[in-house]
């Protein structure tokens, strides 16, 4: 699903994707970089421009909300049983 973008790049998040949490940034030239959230670091050691990095940082709230929504199988917090005791 495309979350946001402009003419230079578009940012996607997929359902049921693998960890670590990340978004796919696709550029107009046909290349792609996967960027881990919420620390906004490229997954494969590549670099991203300040423009892309700032755009993702500014959208972190919506990106992480979508990630949580798309990955409900990710345990929220498995400590509640112990706490109730």
């Amino acid at each position, binding site marked *: *699903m495309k979350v946001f973008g402009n003419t230079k790049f578009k940012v*996607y998040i*997929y*359902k*049921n*994707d*693998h*960890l*670590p*949490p990340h978004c*796919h940034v*696709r550029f107009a030239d*046909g*290349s*792609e970089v*996967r960027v*881990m959230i*919420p*620390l*906004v*670091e490229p*997954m*494969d*050691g*590549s670099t991203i421009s300040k423009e892309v990095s700032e755009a993702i*940082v*500014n959208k*972190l*709230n919506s990106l*992480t*909300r979508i*990630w*949580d929504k798309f990955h*409900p*199988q*990710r*345990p*929220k*917090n*498995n*400590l*509640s049983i*112990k*706490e109730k005791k």
Partner: protein
Amino acid sequence: MMRWNNTSYQKIKDAKFINESIVVSFENGDVIEVPKGSLIPFGDKNNIEWSKLHFNPFEIIVPATPYPLEIQWDKLRVITDREFAKYLAEKSDEQAKLIGVKVKRLRERKNISSKELAERAGVAAQTISRIEQGHTDVSFATLRKILAAMGYTLKDLANQEAELEMENTQKSFNVLLKKLSYAGIDSNFLTKKIIPARLQVALNAQKQNEPTLLLDEVASYVSTIYGWSPNEIWTEKNLVVKSEPAEMAFFKKPTNSNENQVKAYSHYAFYLAKVVLKAFHQKNISEYPSSIEEFKKEYFKNFEGIDLSTLLEFVWNLGICVLPLNDSGVFHGASWNIEGRHVIVLKQNTHSHARWIFDLLHELYHVFAHLDDPNTSVVEVEEMNPFSNNESIEELEANSFANQVIFGSRAEELAEQCVAAAKWDIKNLSKSVVQVARKEKVREDFLSNYLAFRLSYQGENWWSSALKMQVTEPNPFEIASDLLKRKVQIQDLSPMDYSLLTTAIKN
């Protein structure tokens, strides 16, 4: 460059639905077949029209109700490329740990305890601890809540690195201390064990204006042990201690939040173990005994009773190096097989010979039985005693070996004799231990130690009596370090290794 960074590894060239599977060709020539079952997300897809799939270079789109199913290239690769999946799992672990370090740093910056933060955020204290320890099972919603409770946002978390880098552009000893502290290396240990005294004197003398060359020399000691480049130390991201020395084999994760310290100390001990091996050139090494009977036969052929000096001598004669360390903390000893040669690291804070001997026998068994393969290890993250770590078979076996060497198979029988001779009254136990030890020709310190541990597991504290019966002179650390100095050619080491090893074994 890893193959998955190559565009041709990522780009889809063709995709077809054949025999209940999707067959995908990538630009690099790879053709993979993925059964449709492994691509259906949980629950929400009905009427998936697999035969009508279409694709673009990065994803396959399959018409479905209520929304089309989008399958991205890395999803396909992670299912079919084990190395790629492993890489991602490691990356995930690394990221989660980094998030943990950053959350902790923000919390400490605000001077908030984890308990207080948990209360403020309305989450369990364990949730804070899990995040800070780098667990991946915490949702972003919880993370946002925790950050908000400190007055931060996800944006602050992401931008923190830039801030740290800004701080770090100023090279200083304090910056180094701060970075190392996050990696689990505390300043006390650093100044006491890693940085030579002459450099510390120089640093103190030039506190106001620390010369770059001096700082670089200090950093070179750290980078030699931990394998970080100078660039990593001064300018880049958080320093993370590599796990290898602690994870080669039976490493058990510590139960509390000290994994970083265990890793950092294990790395230091591992480095020293390699240094010791570099300087140990003994020839005529005997073969390891293949059973406890053979061990006893060989040992008692040369030595009369079990005492620390003779046992250490026996172990060294087998070609096994024994390195004593005396720092406090969470690491309690280790054994390594480094390229087919063994090193035992002992770390005891007591002067009790009985405890040192028990630990040495325990580790020796690991060497005999569990470390045949090159580059394997056992790292002890819990204190060793006759009854400890009973959940692990390897630890149980090592305890059993130590007890058998010390007591034969009679440990429990002797304990019962002591209790009976004391007329089941703990006040009489000291006297009865002396009597039984004499009668049965067992050392009092071994027997009292065994009983004190035995009783402590049933809620009785008999330690003050047992401690009085311990042999503590000469200092066991000195016995072990003096023997090491005699066995290895320390003078052959490089100045840096010489400094690190001699500092480590100095009492």
